[in-house]
């Protein structure tokens, strides 16, 4: 069941003219995806794998719709080449809303294995990275989305278990 925070996140996407969203589901992102499904001001096209989603986003951008991708941090292991050779090389703005699995509150030990690499990989790729830990951190989303369009880069927004547990 979607919460207010899920509607707020989607509302910020719409307010920033994001017109195309692709997703690979994560339990933490279920509420956002539920809201997206009912939002007719943007096009939601689920993808099977996150690098495919990056391709969809590049095409949508060239078609005149601002894209966003929503995925889990495990996807960082999938999308490196697509981000570097397509999004960064062609200078396409792409907000990436990422569930930061494997942080405090995680129940699945294996998720920690990717969590310990997440920020290091994003830093290695020179991707501007923001981390939502407390509910009020989400107030920055509007500014981050504007910043993404301004700098024409992929930008990562990590959202951890504490954020999703405490945000209403």
């Amino acid at each position, binding site marked *: 069941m979607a919460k207010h925070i899920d509607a707020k996140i989607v509302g910020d996407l719409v307010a920033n003219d994001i017109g*195309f969203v692709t997703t690979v589901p994560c339990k933490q992102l279920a509420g956002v995806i539920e809201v997206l499904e009912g939002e007719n001001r943007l096009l939601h096209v689920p993808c099977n794998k996150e690098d495919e989603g990056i391709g969809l*986003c*590049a095409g949508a951008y*060239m*078609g005149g719709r601002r894209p966003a991708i929503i995925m889990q941090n495990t996807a960082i292991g999938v999308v490196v080449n697509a981000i570097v050779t397509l999004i960064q090389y062609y200078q396409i703005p792409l907000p990436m809303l990422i569930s930061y699995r494997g942080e405090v509150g995680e129940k699945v030990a294996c998720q920690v294995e990717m969590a310990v690499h997440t920020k290091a990989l994003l830093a290695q790729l020179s991707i501007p990275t923001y981390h939502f830990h407390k509910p009020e951190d989400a107030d920055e989303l509007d500014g981050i989305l504007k910043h993404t369009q301004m700098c024409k880069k992929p930008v990562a927004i990590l959202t951890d278990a504490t954020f999703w547990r405490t945000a209403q």
Partner: protein
Amino acid sequence: MIRFEVLKTLLPVFGDHLVVCNIGLPSQELHMLADRPTNFYMLGTMGLASSIGLGLALSQPKKVIVIDGDGSVLTNLATLSTIGNNPAPNLVLLIVDNGSYGSTGDQPTYAGRKTSLTDVARACGCDNVVECRAEETAKAVSDALDSDRMTVIVSKCESGNVDVPVIDMNPVLIRERFMAEVRGE
């Protein structure tokens, strides 16, 4: 008939349509034959031509032709289910199926052995899938453009390449001039 010869037959069909072209030799051959601002050349990122084309077709009304290859589609096979479930009437996906990874030295792909991309596309929910011989490709693409229905064309051609220079264009220039065409400027 090899891919380069197929591309030559397609030039009159492309007209002013938007073309998203696969990485490596296909883009280099198209660039040498007829560089136009309506061509989007992939300089990297194997496998994503069909995904870029679908995102583009779903986001604006102009017709989009994707020139893909059997090896690249095999790399991103699930793309066919995304295309099949989100049909864009303005999308033509041309899979130049020469049964080999042309850009890397013509190593054989599984599409040249037991795997039928035509059957895979149909099983993935693509409603209009046409398999044709290389010589029939231009007519198949032309018919698909006229039909206003999302069409997947699997063109069975011979393996082989011609000598072409690499593309040294700036990627941002490729994207920006392409986007200007999308906007109709």
